[in-house]
């Protein structure tokens, strides 16, 4: 666990309702505490981090491995590098918000790449339990965007 790892984890946590995270190594311990229902942890980040800092030599895997989730929670990841937009234009409402019920094929967000607006459609049906990135934030290929509870 070095500064880069911590930064990278923090960046992950920042977009979620995780309020406590404890990790021991190697593979030994893992503790995660989420905010109580209704807690408003999801404040927008004032200075969005531009990209993932290069992982240090000792950092295995990427952000998506940071937490192990229950089987019913799935991630929607970014299909390309670009800028994440939660709505088709600044004036209108976001495609989805936390708590929304979604079905496969429904548009979830837009990734702008090379000035093209690419609509990302959901491959899952369920309930959106987290939006992991901020509006206007650059995202990598494979970066988790939404947490969906597929049981609901």
């Amino acid at each position: 666990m070095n500064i880069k790892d911590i930064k990278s984890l923090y960046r992950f946590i920042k977009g979620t309702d995780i309020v406590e995270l404890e990790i021991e190594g190697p593979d030994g311990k893992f503790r995660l505490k989420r905010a109580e229902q209704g807690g408003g942890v999801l404040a927008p980040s004032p200075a969005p981090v531009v990209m993932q800092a290069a992982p240090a030599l000792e950092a295995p895997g990427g952000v998506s491995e940071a937490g192990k989730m229950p089987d019913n929670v799935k991630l929607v990841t970014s299909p390309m590098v670009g800028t994440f937009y939660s709505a088709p234009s600044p004036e209108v409402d976001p495609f989805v918000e936390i708590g929304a019920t979604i079905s496969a094929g429904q548009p979830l967000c837009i990734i702008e790449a090379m000035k093209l607006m690419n609509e990302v459609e959901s491959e899952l049906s369920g309930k959106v339990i987290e939006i992991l990135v901020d509006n206007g934030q650059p995202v990598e290929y494979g970066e988790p965007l939404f947490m969906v509870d597929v049981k609901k």
Partner: protein
Amino acid sequence: MFNKILIANRGEVAVRIIRACKELGIQTVAVYSEADRDSLHTKLADFAICIGPAKGTESYLNISSIISAIEVADAEAVHPGYGFLAENAEFAEVCENCGIKLIGPSSATIRVMGNKVEAKTIAEENKIPVLPWSKRAVADEKEALEFAKEIGFPLLIKASSGGGGKGMKLVHTQASLPSAFHMAKTEAHNAFNDPEVFLERFCELPRHIEIQILADEHGNVIHLGERECSIQRRHQKILEEAPSPFMDEKLRKQMGDASIQLAKAIGYHNAGTVEFLVDKNREFYFMEINTRLQVEHPVTEMITGIDIVKEQIRIAAGKKLPLKQKDVTFTGHSIECRINAEDPKTFLPSPGKITELNMPGGPGVRLDSAVYCNSTVSPHYDSMLGKLIVHAGTRNKAIIRMRRALEEFHIEGVKTNVPLHIDIMKDHDFIDGHIDINFLSRYSTK
């Protein structure tokens, strides 16, 4: 000078470019596929962005992903390395349109030089010697037979958009020309999506010698001497050296002058390599210009003391060349061995996890590598692990040093061609400088 450069490549060349940037005080952005999350270039760059899955077409060859990564990273320039998008005129054009500086020549230069018929035509117009050829693309069998009479047999059918031996056919007799012509067209179409072919006289037992040039954006062009690249297997170089044991001062000046003249004629800028065939009578023939950094650039760096990658970056930033031709001097001899993860007998790639690794070191040894112990050699990309480069006072001393260094190389988990390189270092023909592009084929049947 640039503040931040994105490197649109992977492996040892990405590491090489990161090193140059760090020494120039420029921030680096690596892009990586999912398979390269733990690769050295991903770890060494200041920033790293995942651009797609392992497959090259979906990541390192995906122009829109890379342009997006440049934009989100706010990089001012992009270095394409070699391979992938390095000679892709479309990529260069998109960069130009997006206001991103590509560290290389213009898209127009890349496009023209990517077509061998156009390149040869321009060379001839500039009085650079070329092998007798059909002077244009050959439309049909009938034209082929006509040109063949002028050129004589044996001759080569080559693809206009070709490279790496694909779409190339050697024809010894008129009788076999028609079928070879159609096969070449089909191959060219499949490999390059362009069925255009032309005819060229076949040069027997030539040497492959190339001239490194540097051209700034203010019209100044210099050459950094030649590299001898005759040790090839199936048109893939595996060992290069500088200077060429075949070269003399007069021929170097002739070939260097021809290269500079051609570069000036086409308004070339950035680093480039003019490839020639040289026959046993020391006649040289223009083949093509590689509009990018070459794998084998370090041997030139070792004998000139000039950092070619840094010069590329400075040129792209609009700087003038710091040297004139008379300031370029050559010291000693350098050899590069490409270390590939492959079976030394069958030449089949050997991907896997590197479980033990000892790299050579000591005086006169340079390693440009992208692997480390416990890293994984991916099956998705080419099998080159890195390059072992030596420098010494004379060619003979360089050969001895390379052999010593190769013998220190120890790797487990993947097979490599190190044993083949050791055999080459002991080969009397190689030691005596008796090499041509068939050296390795003769050699492997020994």
